[in-house]
């Protein structure tokens, strides 16, 4: 979700195999660099593989360009990597959030074959996605300060996750 010169990215903490819970502290959101985070929902093995490939490509980029990747560029990279596997996709929906030039927040989500969806307010992904659309639509206000943004994101996440059997066990929220 986007705030005033800041963004928030949040995920739940459950890892499960259909109805059995394997872990209750699973980290779904990973840092690419200080101003860019990616959350990967879906099949855990695909999200780990995809994350490792992205970190690899970002490190190569850093070596070549001697700077960090901009969020817009990174989103195109993720989209290309996912579309490459169009007919045998990764079962993974990424949510990308970052600060681009002049601290302007950038958020984006994709389906599992890389169709980018840029939004100015919020993006959602995962099994509780439909419920999250409703919660965020109702609770979002433009230009929220970081503290207020934290509260809003947490409430939206917790309320949607409470109505979904496959998500739960609290949440991780990153405000940047």
């Amino acid at each position, binding site marked *: 979700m986007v705030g005033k010169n800041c963004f928030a990215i949040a995920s739940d903490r459950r890892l499960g195999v259909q109805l059995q819970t394997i872990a209750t502290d699973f980290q779904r959101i990973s840092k690419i660099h200080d101003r860019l985070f990616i959350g990967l929902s879906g099949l855990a093995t695909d999200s780990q593989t995809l994350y490792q490939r992205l970190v690899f490509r970002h490190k190569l980029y850093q070596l070549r360009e001697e700077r960090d990747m901009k969020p817009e560029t990174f989103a195109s990279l993720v989209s290309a990597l996912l579309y490459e596997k169009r*007919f045998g996709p990764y*079962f993974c929906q990424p949510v990308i959030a970052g600060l681009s030039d002049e601290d302007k927040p950038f958020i984006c989500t*994709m389906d599992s*074959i890389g169709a980018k969806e840029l939004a100015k307010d919020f993006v959602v992904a995962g099994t509780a996605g439909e419920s999250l659309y409703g919660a965020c639509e109702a609770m979002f206000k433009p230009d929220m300060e970081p503290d207020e943004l934290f509260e809003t994101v947490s409430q939206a996440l917790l309320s949607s996750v409470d109505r979904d059997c496959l998500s739960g066990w609290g949440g991780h929220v990153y405000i940047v």
Partner: protein
Amino acid sequence: MDNANIGIPPKGGFSFDLCRRNDMLSKKGIVPPPSYRKTGTTIVGLIFQNGVILGADTRATAGSIVCDKNCEKIHYMAPNIYCCGAGTAADTEAVTDMVSSQLQLHRYHTGRESRVVTALTLLKSNLFKYQGHVQAALVLGGVDATGPHLHTIYPHGSTDTLPFATMGSGSLAAMAVFESKYREGLTKEEGISLVCEAICSGIFNDLGSGSNVDICVITKGDKEYLRNHQLPNPRTYISSKGYSFPKKTEGTCITKLFPT
């Protein structure tokens, strides 16, 4: 992708190495198949006196949920050629981006403005190569040295050249408007209002189309991209209070990190 160079960017094209695994997973029923974002759309184009007008709605759906209320379906191909896309969102974006780059390289090579038939041939041969599995249905329009052109391209690679065209799930609703009101030699204002009417008819009568109307007017040497030209679906009854939560959220553990 080969085993030795697993991370190195490949030469291009699709890679099929996860197909066997995905097949096994879907047979075992462990993982539900992913739903792709479609643009269940209304896209239209018509030729008027001085050029081409393209129009599109702005709704993107994933299953029966609207996942983007204001997406862009009119894609840039060349300064004088634009393309509307319906079908699977990733496919339309990828195929139009790719052909747009190929057109740019062709322009550098020949030193001339791109022609609409060039874009048409590149798109149709690409879509035919994948035998319809790349699900992109496109309305391509532009004005080049030989005049205004409008084409439709179907996912399997067949094309039509028409004075007015509609594609997408709302195509029947929009075509009804065109068939009754289109005539040769429309002016720009008449053309724009006819396209708006056709898209609105798609928006209100088709469940897969909605939100706003985007228009692109291409004439010789000039183009106008009217993003959100009409907003027939504003969000009404917004609660002025909003939701505000008191500072404390239960059970949080806050860690502040500063960049190193």
